[in-house]
């Protein structure tokens, strides 16, 4: 089997889809990778993805959003992920085929939304 380096990072296009739901789930999505770096088709080989975020545009010290998924999207919670509200973070995704990783995609910047908390409830003197 011909060994090929996997996947141009520029093939990956990431888009953030914000789902304003009560559960406050956001979704990071990207285009499927279908070709090797030489342009040949990946075909039926299994492609898995690892999505990460970082406060650095160079994706240093990344935190994993999803790992080893064959899906082209990953849901995450700002709270659970520990993302800093009011700050800009960066997402990257890499693909893996046959144990070989691509480079990370071009980082996508995202301003983590700020929100005011609700006021405390049931205030009482006791």
């Amino acid at each position, binding site marked *: 089997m011909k060994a090929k380096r996997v996947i141009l990072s520029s093939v990956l296009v990431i888009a953030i889809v914000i789902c304003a*739901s*009560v559960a406050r789930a956001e979704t990071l999505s990207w285009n499927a990778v279908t070709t090797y770096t030489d342009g040949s088709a990946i075909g039926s080989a299994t492609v898995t993805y690892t999505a990460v975020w970082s406060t650095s545009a160079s994706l240093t010290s990344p935190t994993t959003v999803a790992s080893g998924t064959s899906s082209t999207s990953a849901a995450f919670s700002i*709270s659970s992920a520990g993302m800093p*509200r009011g700050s800009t973070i960066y997402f990257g995704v890499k693909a893996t085929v046959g144990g070989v990783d691509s480079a990370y995609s071009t980082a996508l910047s995202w301003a983590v939304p700020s929100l*005011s*908390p*609700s006021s405390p409830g049931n205030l009482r003197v006791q």
Partner: protein
Amino acid sequence: MMIALATLAVLLAGCGGGGGGGAEGAQASPGPGSSAPSLAWDPPTTFSDNTLLDPYVELDYYEFYLRSDTNFADNDVPVAQVSAVTNVLAPDGSSYVPSLTIVFNLVNLQPFTQQGRVYYLSIKSVGMDGLKSGFSTPVVWNNT
């Protein structure tokens, strides 16, 4: 008056809300047999847009406001602030676990109030990004 209250805010911020200081100062309850009043509340669990909020992760602190009427306004100065989450000693005695702050000992405010007068209290929650909630519904405190 406002200067004095601002001063208290700084003092209490430095000792976790008083009540003896330390990590549990903000939650310190009156001693056995004591009738010292305290202010209690339910931590918010949503953001202003009604999406879910994890108070352990996304709340930074509370601000306490004191007035002799209910006309709380945006330019009021908080008289105290306490951390929204404090670390308390776990039952095993060898580690700490986060605990939500839900009580404030009003004895901390007495040096800045007059006995026998009626006051109104309100609090705001402040998120980790610094954004504040509106005022909670005020409650009356008869400082006897």
